């Protein structure tokens, strides 16, 4: 009797958490202008990406690097897999287009990609892949358990889905996280955010970092 009562409370709690989470994502992905007040949403964002600084990943350009060492410049960070023919290239293009529109000097904003598919995405294959884009993208792979810990820290979820031809695709969170030079998440952009909103959010990120735009 007691166990089922506890179970009920737990289920209710989880449902409320899921609902709140859903509302959070809905609010963050609808392209509405960023709120300037320190709202609950902003506090929620600030807890992302914590506690993983010592995890070592292997970068496409700089070899093995602890996550915490990637700080220093404002960053746009996203997760994915390069066998995806849509999200990955479109995300890079949209970020590059915004960087170009804002007239940011090269390398003031670091674009970083973490693969959720380390079996197929090695630092070498990713370097070749991202060479095809105008801007600089630093791509990171690593041990599955390390990637999982970083993904969890950013609330990134993913799921491998087998396809008929023996291949697989990966359903995954396609959000772009905007981090300040201290490595704190200060904003998020949902996939499909209109270009003018991406520009406005990047402008805010860069201005808060002291850039004159």
């Amino acid at each position, binding site marked *: 009797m007691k166990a089922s009562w506890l179970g009920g409370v737990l289920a209710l709690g989880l449902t409320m958490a899921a609902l709140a989470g859903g509302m959070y*994502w809905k609010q963050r992905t609808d392209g509405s202008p960023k709120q300037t007040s320190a709202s609950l949403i902003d506090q929620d964002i600030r807890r992302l990406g914590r506690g993983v600084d010592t995890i070592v990943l292997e970068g496409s350009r700089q070899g093995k690097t602890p996550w915490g060492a990637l700080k220093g410049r404002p960053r746009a960070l996203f997760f994915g897999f390069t066998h995806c*023919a849509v999200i990955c290239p479109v995300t890079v293009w949209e970020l590059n287009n915004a960087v170009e529109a804002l007239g940011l000097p090269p390398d003031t904003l670091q674009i970083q990609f973490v693969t959720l598919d380390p079996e197929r995405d090695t630092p070498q294959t990713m370097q070749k892949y991202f060479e095809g884009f105008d801007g600089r993208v630093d791509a990171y792979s690593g041990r599955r358990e390390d990637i999982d810990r970083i993904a969890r820290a950013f609330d990134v979820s993913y799921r491998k889905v087998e396809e008929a031809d023996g291949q697989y695709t990966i359903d995954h969170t396609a959000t772009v996280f905007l981090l300040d030079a201290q490595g704190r998440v200060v904003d998020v952009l949902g996939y499909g955010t209109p270009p003018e909103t991406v520009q406005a959010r990047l402008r805010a990120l860069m201005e808060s970092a002291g850039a004159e735009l």
Partner: protein
Amino acid sequence: MEPQSGVSEILCTRGEVMKVWTTITIAVALMCASCSAPGSPSGIVVEGAWIAAPSGNDVASGFATIRNPGGRADRLLGAATRRASMAMLHDMTITNGVVAMRAAPSGFPIAAGSEMVLSPQGAHIMLMGISPPLKEGEPVQMELTFEKAGRVVAPFVVGAKQPASAHTTHP
């Protein structure tokens, strides 16, 4: 209007000249893409067709606006091209920020007098087994199969960059 003087001021390096020429080539090719289909007896019009193909990857995706100005509903059933061993219609769903892509074997309906958009935020054509790698500006002949209109061939132009006009928000 004196485009010549403006251009010579802006273009400093050979690389930049090449970039502009590539852009012009793609722009012209896109215009052709939108004007070739209306002549087809089916009445289906394929506009702004392009392929996102970065970095010599063996997968790519195709996007376009497909108009059905006729008086009967139709359905896009499939796509095929010689440049890829497989072309599939894919649909995309976004749930709580998680993007999922799935094959859409039953295709996509296009009501009479309406249009459907294949875009990076929704339905699109997924190309697999591309060999040799696609080249920027290359017009890829894509055969689209419709339930009523039958086969319609349209060039999809390979872009190493998303055309500025190609962004559409998710419905």
